[in-house]
């Protein structure tokens, strides 16, 4: 059911004003993670394991500690011993602690084992060489399928939670199974059943700004932390637990952020900098190198998947089954459950079964990456759908339309869908000139649908009016996608004052109530909803002041176009009272006027998209060029359409990298072979075509303006759409990502991907 007061006609929402952070960013005035300095500041550096799996027999830091430039050395002993190990995700603080500083074992190449603080960055790096670590090297495993076989090295006994059936390897730490109907009966009704297997490699979120922080923690347990993060409250809570201090005594400020994409939703260097600062009694700054970012911060999971889908000759899907094995590094957390729940979600299926495995291997702890888990599943499922269409001679868009989930469909993960926009994206795709444009020889076209849940989460917003009628809005969700602009637009819509008169600030943890991380495509939805409610709270007070001035009841006053006005002819004859006229005297008419909202909004609304891709494969080199790309996605309501288009284009661009080039390459020794951008190839501007976008708006019933999150769904369809385009161009089915030139050449040579 839609909110009673859902708005559909707008003055400011839907316009494209200049971004409020633009000047700061182009002039260098914006302060990112590495831009903070403090008097007496030391520089931290972290010693990392060169082994994929090794017992730490002994750490001798005496030579480093004796060096005059070194002011502190920390190991695991310098963190709280109260953090409890629990199976699965129940012990996530322990998992994070074990990741930021190894305990008994180094679990992957790049795992932190010790850290130093010294008088300069160079001195700190040099001092690492003075720390002697004795390792007992253990057998390792980095491949998800190999990590599940009986003789695979066990990474950690006891990490499996309640969900794992008996008989599976201890590296399988979580298990998910869901679905409905009878898949075997469904396969029996099909005219064609295709069963196939697929793999994707781990990719990094690839944010341009490396992790960086400045920490100060005194012996009194009071601390300050400046860091680049998607969520400074979770950083505060986690660091406090890992350091054994009270949460409220640690004030965390989020810097300007140079990309996150899910990878900055946890902590890596921040607890280490705090521990060094506590020991040295001086502020400590740590800035990761790019190699450290690749080796020791979260890439996404790698995946191995088996898909079976049955279809009738008319394109009706009769049954679908997927087994999804996701590797998440040496810790629980690979989103096999999310992959399973999202994989078939675009389709209205009578018979469906999905199984997800969370598997540990000797790799860095995976971190979320835009719609975590969903892109891999979509790649596998939509590839099989494409192959079914090819073999049955059916149009791939018609088949998707025929099977598309719609309002009232039972989702593959269980519940019945409310108001959703998938069919509209497919209809827009079919009507788009791209879909009917002729292809040149050597080119292929692919399409794919994609789904993501979206999220609400704990949210606090505060809005304060100034005497001159301008407004300050304080939010707690770091701006990773233009949220300051969209918040200002939503506040302007309610207050009726210009966008330019509203300044939005990302407040620190001491200034505002708790806020969840900027993740789950939740910011425009949840902080936006809270902004609207906070602005309405302020408007109530403005109306009260007008009612007092006019001597009429407050319910005889309404707010219209930035002014208090009588609610009807019976309320009296008064000229409209502008906001600035009320705030000019607010100190003498009852005090400052502010609005607040604190809640956990629970109506994020799921989101769907459809992508169309043209690809051209060079048969001599195996290189793929993406020649045309169109993204069609439901935004519910686009608050600032240019930012929405940017999210769509960014998802496609990152998906192109994931599909064609990006991968974590491990040697036989379990060491990462390509930990710099020269060897790990993300797309650059010259690799990309203009990415066209179509914003579909099927309002989310759970938001006052109809907003659905848009940040994540855009990366779900690209892997599949590109794989289908490349497979159709090359004439062979590509089953493994990335589709790098050597892999495509090999497929062309063998005649089978």
């Amino acid at each position, binding site marked *: 059911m839609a909110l009673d007061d859902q708005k559909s006609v707008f003055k400011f929402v839907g316009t494209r004003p200049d971004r409020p952070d633009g000047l700061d960013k182009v002039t260098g005035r914006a302060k990112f993670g590495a831009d903070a300095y403090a008097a007496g500041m030391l520089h931290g550096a972290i010693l990392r394991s060169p082994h994929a799996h090794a017992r730490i027999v002994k750490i001798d830091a005496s030579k480093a500690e004796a060096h005059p430039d070194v002011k502190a050395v920390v190991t695991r002993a310098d963190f709280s011993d109260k953090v409890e190990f629990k199976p*699965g*995700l*129940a012990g996530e603080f322990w998992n994070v602690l074990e990741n930021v500083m190894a305990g008994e074992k180094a679990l992957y190449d790049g795992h932190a084992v010790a850290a130093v603080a010294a008088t300069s960055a160079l001195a700190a790096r040099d001092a690492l060489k003075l720390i002697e670590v004795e390792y007992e090297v253990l057998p390792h495993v980095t491949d998800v399928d190999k990590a599940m076989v009986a003789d695979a090295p066990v990474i950690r006994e006891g990490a499996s*939670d*309640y*969900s794992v*059936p008996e008989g599976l390897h201890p590296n399988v730490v979580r*298990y*998910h*199974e*869901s*679905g409905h109907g009878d898949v075997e009966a469904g396969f029996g009704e099909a005219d064609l059943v295709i069963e196939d297997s697929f793999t994707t490699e781990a990719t990094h979120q690839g944010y341009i700004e490396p992790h960086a922080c400045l920490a100060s923690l005194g012996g009194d347990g009071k601390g300050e932390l400046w860091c680049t993060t998607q969520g400074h409250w979770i950083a505060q809570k986690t660091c406090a637990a890992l350091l054994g201090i009270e949460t409220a005594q640690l004030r965390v400020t989020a810097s300007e952020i140079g990309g996150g*994409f*899910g*990878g900055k*939703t946890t902590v890596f260097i921040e607890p280490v900098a705090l521990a060094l600062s506590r020991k040295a009694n001086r502020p400590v700054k740590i800035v990761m190198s790019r190699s450290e970012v690749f080796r020791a911060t979260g890439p996404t999971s790698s995946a191995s998947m088996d898909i079976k889908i049955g279809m009738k000759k008319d394109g009706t899907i009769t049954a679908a089954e997927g087994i999804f094995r996701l590797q998440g590094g040496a810790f629980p957390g690979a*989103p096999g*459950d*999310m992959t399973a*729940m999202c994989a078939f979600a675009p389709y209205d299926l009578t018979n469906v*079964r999905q199984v997800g495995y969370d598997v540990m291997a000797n790799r860095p702890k995976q*971190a*979320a*990456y*835009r*719609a*975590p888990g969903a892109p891999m599943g979509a790649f596998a499922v939509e590839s099989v759908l494409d192959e079914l269409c090819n073999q049955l001679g059916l149009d791939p868009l018609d088949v998707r339309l025929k099977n598309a989930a719609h309002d009232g469909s039972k*989702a593959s*993960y*269980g*519940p*019945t*869908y*409310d108001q959703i926009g998938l069919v509209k994206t497919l209809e827009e795709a079919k009507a788009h000139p791209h879909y009917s444009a002729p292809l040149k020889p050597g080119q292929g076209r692919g399409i794919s649908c994609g789904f993501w*849940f*979206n*999220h*609400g*989460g*704990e949210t606090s917003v505060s809005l304060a009016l100034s005497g001159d009628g301008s407004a300050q809005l304080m939010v707690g969700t770091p701006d990773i996608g233009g949220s300051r602009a969209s918040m200002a637009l939503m506040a302007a819509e309610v207050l009726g004052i210009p966008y330019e008169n509203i300044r939005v600030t990302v407040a620190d943890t001491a200034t505002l109530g708790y806020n969840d991380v900027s*993740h*789950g*495509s*939740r910011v425009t939805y949840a902080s936006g909803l809270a902004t609207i409610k906070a602005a309405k709270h302020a408007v109530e007070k403005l109306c009260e002041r007008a009612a007092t001035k006019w001597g009429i009841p407050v319910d005889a006053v309404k707010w219209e176009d930035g002014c208090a006005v009588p609610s009807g002819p019976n309320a009296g004859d008064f000229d409209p009272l502008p906001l600035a006229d009320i705030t000019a005297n607010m100190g003498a008419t009852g005090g400052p006027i502010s609005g607040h909202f604190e809640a*956990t909004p*629970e*109506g*994020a609304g*799921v989101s769907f998209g459809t992508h169309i891709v043209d690809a051209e494969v060079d048969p001599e080199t195996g290189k793929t060029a993406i020649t045309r790309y169109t993204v069609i996605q439901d935004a519910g309501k686009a608050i600032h359409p240019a930012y929405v288009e940017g999210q769509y284009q960014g998802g496609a661009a990152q998906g192109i990298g994931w599909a064609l080039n990006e991968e974590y390459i491990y040697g036989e020794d379990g060491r990462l072979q390509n930990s710099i951008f020269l060897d790990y190839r993300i797309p650059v501007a010259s690799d990309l075509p203009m990415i066209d976008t179509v914003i579909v708006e099927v309002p989310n019933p*759970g938001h006052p303006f109809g907003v659905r999150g848009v940040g*994540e769904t855009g990366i779900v369809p690209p892997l599949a759409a590109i794989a289908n385009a490349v497979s159709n161009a090359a004439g062979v089915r590509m089953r493994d990502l990335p589709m790098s030139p050597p892999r495509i050449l090999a497929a062309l040579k063998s005649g089978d991907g």
Partner: protein
Amino acid sequence: MTVKVHLWSGLRALTGEQAVVEVEAATIGDMLRELVRLHPALQAPIDAGVSVSVDGRIMASDLTAPVAAENEIYLMQRLRGG
């Protein structure tokens, strides 16, 4: 009032193969408590984190949200985003 809670199939091993569990509850918080009272093995998945879908609207964490006999209720794994 009695509400019907649909479980994902991986949980059926913890409920004697029941796919739908009926409990007396007026809120999501009541519902989760009753589920554990009837099937103590459900404590582990609930502790690990669950979301609840009420008529297709996914409640990530609100224990106070009302539930009623006419609602379609699904227990889901807690959602995580990027």
